[in-house]
């Protein structure tokens, strides 16, 4: 046998991708074992954004946890606020007494945040696939959505809006009109995304038949949210364990079939549309009335009261210094975050500070399957697959 016909002796190559790679968002490291461009093995390493969320929560009062929850999934920060507030209210046993207006507003901000989250996710994905034009459209749409949220709570990213027993402020004047104008624009943008991407040859080639997973595997790994629905499992916490006012609203849960990246994209696109519908329905029946519970031991009384009434003053003082007195108990409240089931598991032993404040991060469970999904694929497939998993460092690493 002549020399050039003999097999070359080759060894798999080990390649470090990340922790800070220009084509991935979020700080995560992939330790790849490659045969040419083919992935033989992929080890995912997380933890680069760990900020001791739980330890901080245990050190502060129940109210002081809110700013920390903003920094979990920062793309839809207000959803974390709402989920945490719902959990604490259940521990207190006051969930029935929350005014209807507050519940409606919470639903509105949750859905606006979901839209913003999906815009961000899809925008970043298109950018990382090289479609800068589509990215700019997505960012513009997100900007408009953030303008709405900003008009409510004054911040674009970190909301700190919800309180135990109510909200920090009511909707601004003319909010419904503002929403109407923004949604006209957003629907135009939505059609543009659809035209730019859904039948785009390059986009299809990169997304379709890549990153798929079977239903059994997705369930065994603990997939939830758009990633689970894209494989055809109809599971949405808003439908199965309705919270807020989701049981009174009319909306569809989109599901995919194969669970590949293109299905995940389609599911998210459809969810954006459904979220707009939900917001419009909520605004249509938004009741008038107070936004805070009438219970000074749970929600601080108004400033006017504090300055004129000794009882309110005492409550204000005690709520701030000692924290709300939450009776001993434990609770797990699941909510539908933008990425999947986001649950708060709280333990109280009585008193003003949480004994334990655990959040079930949806992308944590999904990211662990990354190695499984990309095994046998090409190195370039990591980019769209990882984009569509939508790892959010703040939520995954806490």
């Amino acid at each position, binding site marked *: 046998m002549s020399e050039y016909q003999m097999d070359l002796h080759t060894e798999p190559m080990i390649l470090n991708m990340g922790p800070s790679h220009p084509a991935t968002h979020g700080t995560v490291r992939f330790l790849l074992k490659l045969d040419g461009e083919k992935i033989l093995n992929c080890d995912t390493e997380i933890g680069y954004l760990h900020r001791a969320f739980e330890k901080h929560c245990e050190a502060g009062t129940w109210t002081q946890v809110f700013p920390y929850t903003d920094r979990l999934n920062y793309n839809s920060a207000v959803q974390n606020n709402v989920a945490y507030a719902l959990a604490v209210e259940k521990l207190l046993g006051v969930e029935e007494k929350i005014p209807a207006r507050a519940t409606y507003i919470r639903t509105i901000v949750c859905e606006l945040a979901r839209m913003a989250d999906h815009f961000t996710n899809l925008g970043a994905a298109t950018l990382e696939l090289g479609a800068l034009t589509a990215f700019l459209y997505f960012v513009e749409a997100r900007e408009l959505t953030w303008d709405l949220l900003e008009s409510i709570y004054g911040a674009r990213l970190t909301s700190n809006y919800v309180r135990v027993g109510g909200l920090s402020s009511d909707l601004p004047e003319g909010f419904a009109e503002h929403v109407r104008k923004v949604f006209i624009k957003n629907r135009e943008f939505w059609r543009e995304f659809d035209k730019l991407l859904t039948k785009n040859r390059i986009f299809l080639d990169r997304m379709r038949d890549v990153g798929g997973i079977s239903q059994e595997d997705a369930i065994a790994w603990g997939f939830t949210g758009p990633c689970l629905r894209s494989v055809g499992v109809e599971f949405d916490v808003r439908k199965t364990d309705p919270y807020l006012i989701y049981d009174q609203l009319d909306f569809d849960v989109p599901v995919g079939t194969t669970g590949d990246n293109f299905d995940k994209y389609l599911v998210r696109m459809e969810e954006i549309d459904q979220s707009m519908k939900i917001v419009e329905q909520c605004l249509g029946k938004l009741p008038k009335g107070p936004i805070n519970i009438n219970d000074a031991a749970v929600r601080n009384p108004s400033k006017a009261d504090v300055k004129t009434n000794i009882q309110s003053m005492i409550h204000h003082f005690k709520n701030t210094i000692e924290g709300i007195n939450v009776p001993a108990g434990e609770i797990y409240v699941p909510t539908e975050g933008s990425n999947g089931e986001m649950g708060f598991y709280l333990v109280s032993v009585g008193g003003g500070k949480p004994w*334990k404040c655990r959040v079930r991060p949806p992308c944590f469970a999904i990211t662990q399957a990354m190695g499984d999904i990309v095994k046998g694929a090409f190195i370039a497939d990591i980019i769209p697959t990882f984009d569509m998993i939508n790892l959010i460092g703040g939520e995954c690493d806490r």
Partner: protein
Amino acid sequence: MVELSERIKRLLPDAVLSAGSSLGQQYVVVRREAVVEAMRKLRDDETMLFNFMMDLTAVDYLGKRAHDARYEIVYHLYSLKHHHRIRVKVSVGADDPSLDSIVPVWKGADWFEREAWDLYGITFKGHPNLKRILLYEEFVGHPLRKDYPIKKRQPLIGPEN
């Protein structure tokens, strides 16, 4: 209608120590040695079919309970078919904070168990790759234990304080 936790107790008389509900949520306390067997039964039994291991975490009850039940491992399961949820709790002592890994039942428990090991120092016997996940390898101790001071710093580089 018999409550879910009661039905689980009847299904697994040897494994379940107690059952009940708190704030409207069902829970069962399972014997530490029987956890894998109980989980497999909960996943496969026709009346249960808990196919989702939603959450796994630990709680440190330092000073709130007896020494031999300091930690509690808490699992939250969900059934897609029956739409029910259950909280499974297992107590382990401070002397030997360990129990069997449930990765053979749900592979999705992998990172959750690593996290509980990392932050609470609970050993999951039989776990395929039990190492730190959120913290770095050189970290000493388990920071979510109640006796780990909140102000303690362990920088890898830079000044000690």
